[in-house]
């Protein structure tokens, strides 16, 4: 962030410095301020730098334009806006520049032209002419002097030519007077300042002109700014010997006149030069102006691109961000370009996406919570021994837990979505359940509670059933939830408890008075039976009856007390199969035609149980079966054992089957209740005690009629004590086993 800011500042600084340097160079570049040699040398470089700048800008602009066109064709978001903004900015920047440029060019041309004035030109021309005339007068005068000197020399007869020439020079006021031979040899010379210079030989021009027979006269500007008049004439043939001679004279022009003439000449030249340079100057200004314009213009165009891009970039980002949000990506965060309105907009956008993201996260969280709650409820429902079924209003199954299926004898999980009505045809328990439910629902009674008794093959099943309506639209229910509990076992337990209590009371209340009654009867017999009383026979019979009945009552009470008694368990490991075989052997009599078949599982090893109790169980069961078949000719009893593993719990199944009349339908559920019996003989406590003993081992017992006719008692006994504990705790398995049974 800080580095970016520093870079930005550096770029801005570099730009400002660059523009300043360029501007100052252009200032120096001004065509009027260029006299130094250094500048003249730098000029091409300055030009080159500017041209390079122009080329660079053109390249940048070209790249930008190409990119814009590409974006436009590809429909990149924001490209249209960028193009429009770009065109607008370019037009805004370029049009005033062009107008200023046109005016400036016009202004320069007119301005430069206005420097020059016809009157000034004429005046200077006239002044020059005047100076020339003034000088010309003097020069002609000097030529006249030289001509006279030539004539004089031609007629002179003096032999002292040097002296004569010196006199002539002094008289005429010449600075130098020399006579040359035809081949430029100095013949005689006289100079005002002889030590200073050697006389210059006549130039080609002089010789040429004199060769044509004319005199030579010229005004020669000197390097120091003064003027010199050079006049040369041919000396008459024969003068100073026979060869042709040249007389050349140099005169200094009057200094005052020379200076004045020089001033005029310089002014004229300056004006003439300036006038000549006018067009070049205009061109220069125009070129300069054009270069400055081009750079400025291109910079403005590029600037337009740049600012359009900078303006559009946040908008593009915003568009991209909006699309991302529309796609559901709330994690988009846009960089904030500046603290302006667009920055505010982007800030708001970021804020919005953040809130959306948070809201979605919260929604997801709560959804997860709901889901986990639902799962928990599901687990609870699954583990619940209570059956829970939710139904649509048309009695289709929406959900059902496992217990519901187990209680109703249907695998409801595989019938989800099906109507109870159609299922009830195949499942008798369900049809009874449905009948009760419908009787309420059809009446419009959605909230009800009732105890239902279902009758099936395995016996009676008592359900406590409650129904409630799910809230739906308006007053109609959105469905029903039916909750039911199999309270058969509960009722059974209650009954068992009640019987236990009865047995204890009987043992206590009845057994106590029986002993005194018996003792009293026996005393009566001892005292009065030996004598000879008239009623001794009666007494004998009566006391005998009393004693006998008391004995029977005692027996009965003992049986009851046995039932109620819960002596400590004496667990040991023994071979159950062997025990069964031993007990069964006791019931085999050669004179009695009965079949007693054993089908014992050889896999079964030792069982941990109370051997005495198990022996009693077997005795009771066999005796019960024999009693049931008392009037039959062919008695068949079969005992089988089977060893199996039910979900980690080792069990042994003992099945005792007979071919008697079986249980009557109405008592099949109460077969293990005391005094529930269909037999003539027996106390009615046999099966009740068996059940009690098995339950003490943690096992279970069921009674049913076998398919071949006859009764079938099934015992499920845990092989070890641990298995028994596990079996008691795993309540849900109870249902399963019962289902299987």
């Amino acid at each position: 962030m800080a580095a970016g800011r520093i870079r930005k500042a550096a770029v801005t600084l570099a730009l400002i410095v660059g523009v300043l340097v360029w501007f100052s160079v252009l200032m120096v570049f001004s065509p009027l301020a260029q006299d130094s040699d250094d500048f003249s040398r730098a000029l091409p470089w300055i030009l080159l730098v500017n041209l390079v700048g122009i080329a660079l800008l053109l390249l940048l602009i070209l790249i930008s334009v190409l990119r814009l066109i590409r974006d436009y064709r590809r429909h990149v978001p924001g490209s249209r806006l960028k193009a429009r903004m770009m065109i607008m900015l370019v037009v805004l920047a370029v049009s005033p520049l062009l107008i200023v440029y046109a005016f400036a060019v016009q202004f320069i041309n007119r301005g430069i032209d206005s420097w020059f004035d016809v009157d000034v030109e004429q005046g200077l021309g006239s002044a020059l002419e005047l100076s020339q005339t003034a000088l010309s007068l003097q020069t002609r005068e000097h030529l006249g002097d030289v001509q006279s000197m030539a004539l004089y020399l031609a007629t002179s007869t003096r032999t002292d030519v040097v002296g004569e020439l010196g006199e002539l020079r002094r008289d005429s006021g010449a600075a130098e007077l020399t006579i040359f031979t035809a081949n430029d040899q100095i013949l005689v010379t006289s100079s005002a300042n002889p030590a200073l210079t050697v006389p210059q030989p006549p130039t080609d021009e002089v010789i040429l002109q004199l060769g044509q027979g004319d005199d030579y006269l010229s005004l020669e500007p000197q390097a120091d700014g003064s003027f010199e008049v050079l006049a040369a004439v041919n000396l008459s043939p024969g003068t100073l010997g026979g060869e042709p001679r040249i007389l050349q004279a140099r005169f200094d022009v009057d200094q005052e006149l020379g200076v004045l003439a020089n001033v005029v000449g310089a002014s004229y030249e300056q004006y003439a030069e300036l006038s000549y340079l006018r067009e070049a100057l205009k061109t220069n200004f125009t070129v300069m102006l054009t270069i400055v314009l081009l750079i400025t213009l291109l910079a403005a165009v590029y600037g337009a691109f740049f600012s359009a891009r900078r303006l559009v970039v946040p908008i593009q980002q915003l568009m991209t961000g909006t699309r991302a949000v529309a796609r559901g990506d709330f994690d988009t965060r846009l960089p904030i370009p500046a603290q302006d309105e667009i920055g505010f907009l982007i800030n708001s956008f970021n804020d919005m996406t953040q809130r959306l993201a948070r809201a979605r996260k919260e929604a997801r969280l709560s959804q997860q919570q709901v889901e986990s709650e639902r799962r928990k409820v599901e687990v609870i429902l699954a583990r619940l021994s209570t059956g829970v079924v939710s139904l649509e209003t048309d009695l289709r199954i929406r959900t059902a837990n496992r217990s519901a299926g187990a209680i109703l004898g249907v695998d409801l999980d595989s019938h989800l979505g099906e109507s109870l009505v159609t299922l009830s045809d195949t499942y008798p328990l369900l049809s009874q359940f449905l009948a009760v439910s419908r009787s309420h629902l059809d009446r419009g009674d959605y909230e009800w509670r009732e105890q239902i008794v279902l009758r099936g093959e395995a016996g009676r099943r008592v359900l406590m059933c409650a129904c409630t309506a799910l809230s739906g639209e308006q007053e109609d229910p959105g469905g029903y939830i039916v909750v039911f509990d199999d309270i058969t076992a509960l009722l059974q337990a209650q009954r068992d408890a009640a019987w236990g209590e009865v047995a204890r009371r009987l043992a206590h209340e009845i057994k106590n008075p029986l002993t005194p009654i018996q003792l009293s009867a026996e005393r009566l017999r001892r005292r009065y039976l030996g004598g000879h009383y008239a009623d001794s026979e009666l007494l004998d019979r009566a006391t005998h009856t009393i004693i006998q009945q008391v004995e029977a009552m005692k027996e009965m009470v003992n049986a009851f007390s046995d039932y109620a008694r819960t002596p400590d368990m004496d667990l040991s490991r023994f071979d159950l199969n062997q025990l069964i075989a031993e007990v069964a052997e006791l019931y085999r009599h050669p004179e009695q035609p009965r079949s007693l078949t054993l089908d014992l599982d050889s896999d079964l090893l030792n069982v941990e149980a109370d051997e005495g109790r198990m022996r009693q169980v077997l005795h009771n069961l066999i005796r019960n079966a024999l009693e049931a078949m008392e009037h039959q000719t062919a008695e068949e009893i079969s005992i089988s054992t089977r060893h199996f593993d039910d979900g980690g719990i080792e069990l042994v199944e003992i099945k005792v089957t007979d071919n008697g009349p079986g249980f009557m339908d109405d008592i099949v559920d109460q077969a293990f209740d005391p005094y529930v019996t269909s037999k003539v003989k027996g106390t009615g406590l046999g099966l009740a005690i068996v059940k009690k003993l098995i339950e003490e081992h943690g096992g279970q017992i069921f009674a049913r009629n076998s398919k071949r006719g006859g009764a079938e008692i099934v015992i499920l006994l845990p092989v070890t004590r641990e298995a028994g504990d596990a079996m008691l705790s795993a309540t849900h398995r109870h249902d399963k086993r019962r289902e299987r049974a």
Partner: protein
Amino acid sequence: MNLVGHNKMAASRWGFSARALETVAVAVLALGVQQSAQAQDDPGRFEIRSASVELRSGVYYLDAWVEYRLSTEARAALDAGVALTLDTEVEFLRSRRFWFDDEEANLRQGYELQYHALSERYLVLNLNSGEQSSFATLFSALNSLGRITELPLIDAALLDSDATYDIRIRALLSTEDIPGPLRLLAFWRRDWSLESEWYTWQLDE
């Protein structure tokens, strides 16, 4: 007349760079400036007609004949009072095998040619000596400029007697000293770039 050694090299390099850039300028800067020479205008021509070197008492002297013909544009500028600088460049090159020739010494003789309006004469100023002469016509002025006689070039002792030397000479109109406004034009106007080809010959021992 004097002998100029390596110290003038920089200036000559600059002059050369300027001319090279001129081409670039012409190529890149297609500005709508008026086209210079019209068809009938004389483009001018500088040419070395002959040149020779003579060794006399240990010094090499140059004799050369240069033909100067100013372009119409340059003549117009001259007549308007613009002083023109005409340079004659002489270079001694040492031939080297497998490598570029080495520039041993160079000499630049500059003359300023100017029209003097008051006297209506053409002045020629020797920039090296400060000697000035005047001519009635441009022809005689240029003719005088073109006759180079006995220009002392270099002391023979300064040259390696074993090496082979090439001498080359050329004449050119210097655009470095013309007035500013013309300088810019001179970059892309043909009639301001007046220079002769190099005239090269081998120095005889």
